[in-house]
């Protein structure tokens, strides 16, 4: 375990470079136009938050938590869909595979690219909900029927968002490792996410007419369902905590398995290769 940690994090040159490149790219934001854009974004965002706070009696603050979950899913897929397929498309993948780094190290470095953007999105979109709760001075989220303590709701929401992002990252990286083009990776990622989150919900909802238990079982790990159960405590037969644990646990486990599978996929490519054109 210690060796694996060292391989993936402390002694991963690709990861080290990816993180230092991130900080370098932040330093490059010194260009005036980028500063202006950043300042405008902050002003607009703060304006939105302040206006929403003034309508605290009428606005359901949980909407920011759903937005956080939805945007983090999209952001993860957007950041990562081209990570390995793009390397293959520009044919730079060989330059990495010929280097003395393991495929695990390459994939973890790619995964790290999504970490900061997703964390920023989750933090930025969770903040209004926290503010709503503080302004109301009740320690509760101003959501219809919500009785859950604000701190627990926020922690659960961040947990669901991050676990879901890890799973989406796993799906995206695996599909990126399996596709030869970025467009192929994007299409298959969007199709897979639609099937996993939209189509499955539709099937489960339809099944609810026949068998409520089976429908609940399918919906239990669904992140939006788990978040709803936590926020509104609408758990019927399935307690919110159980739904939360299943959602976070399953997404994290499957996410890690998919990341591992993406690394294996690259390793196979390194061993078997593709028939060269000449």
């Amino acid at each position, binding site marked *: 375990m210690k060796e694996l940690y060292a391989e993936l994090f402390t002694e991963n040159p690709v990861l080290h470079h990816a993180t230092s490149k991130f900080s370098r790219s932040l330093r490059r934001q010194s260009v005036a136009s980028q500063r202006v854009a950043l300042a405008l974004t902050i002003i607009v965002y703060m304006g939105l938050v302040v206006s929403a706070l003034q309508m605290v009696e009428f606005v359901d603050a949980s909407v920011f938590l759903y937005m956080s979950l939805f945007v983090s899913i999209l952001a993860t897929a957007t950041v990562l869909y081209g990570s390995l397929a793009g390397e293959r498309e*520009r044919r730079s993948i060989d330059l990495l595979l*010929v280097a003395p780094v393991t495929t695990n190290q390459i994939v973890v470095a790619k995964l790290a690219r999504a970490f900061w953007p997703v964390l920023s999105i989750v933090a930025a979109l969770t903040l209004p909900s926290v503010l709503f709760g503080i302004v109301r001075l009740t320690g509760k989220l101003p959501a219809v029927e919500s009785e859950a303590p604000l701190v627990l709701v926020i922690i659960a929401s961040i947990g669901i968002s991050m676990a879901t992002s890890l799973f989406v990252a796993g799906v995206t990286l695996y599909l990126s490792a399996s596709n030869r083009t970025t467009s192929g990776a994007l299409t298959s990622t969007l199709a897979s996410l639609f099937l996993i989150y939209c189509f499955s919900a539709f099937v489960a909802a339809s099944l609810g007419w026949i068998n409520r238990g089976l429908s609940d079982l399918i919906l239990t790990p669904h992140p939006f369902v788990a978040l709803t159960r936590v926020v509104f405590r609408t758990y019927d037969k399935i307690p919110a905590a159980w739904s939360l644990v299943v959602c976070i646990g399953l997404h994290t486990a499957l996410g890690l398995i998919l990341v591992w599978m993406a690394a294996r996929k690259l390793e196979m490519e390194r061993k078997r290769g593709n028939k060269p054109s*000449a």
Partner: protein
Amino acid sequence: MLEVNGLCKSFGPLVAVDNVSFTLQPGDVFGFIGSNGAGKTTTIRMLATLLEPDAGSASLNGLDMRRNAMEVRNMIGYMPDFFGLYEDIKVWEYLDFFATVYRVPKSERPSIVDNVLELVGLTTKKDAYALSLSKGMQQRLSLARCLVHDPSLLLLDEPASGLDPRARAELKELIAELGKMGKMVIVSSHILPELADFCNTVGIIERGRLITHGRVDDIVRDLQQTKVLLIRFIDRAHEAGMFLHGNEHVNANYVTGPTTLKVDFTGEHEDQARLLKMLIDEGYQVTSYMEEAIDLEDVFLKVTTGAVN
């Protein structure tokens, strides 16, 4: 030292590389010659540890390339026949990235980046974006990338393809310089006359099989057992050809023009002089009589059949 023993690789029914063996010593610049689809790239990719061979082995400086792939990768610089550049990355950042990947200590990276840029003549482009460079410069940057970790074996797959004559000449000088630095270099190329200028050993591959390999001079000498005499006359070249037909040292002769005759000759220098005397005594007016020098292109054409996989 690089030792390649019986490398084989198939893709389904296609045998891409069939029992390829050769050895290189430090300082050897090995020209890998073959038609399209002959198996050059597949062999190079196997040596770059990007493909596992179906059979055979290769070892670099005593380390087996399959069993010690990670260690061996540190000793290899691989330049594919494409650039593989990242967008939005400067020349120095590109080299710094690969220096990091090859675990070059952080304190040494800036000086190494400067040194390799100087070696390939890109110092002035240090802060330029890699994608903004011309094709020749990108090729040199690609070569610089191969050098950041000071490898002992360089695998250059078609490094001169698509370059203009000046860029090709510069690349040629660079590769020759690397050979002098004691590095083993394997260069695959179609431009045979250029390979002859800086390769001290060559290997000719056809349909996955290494037909011949060794020092350029040795191969030429082997092939020159039947040297070609180029004889020019004022006229009657055809008649002279008929006259030489049946001579004990003449394998065959070809009239290549009304005044030119090529003769496949097996004799020694004395026999060569005697043949000239015979022609003159018979009244043929010889204007020039010379042994045609054989070059790498002739070697290639002689030993290959043109068949492809």
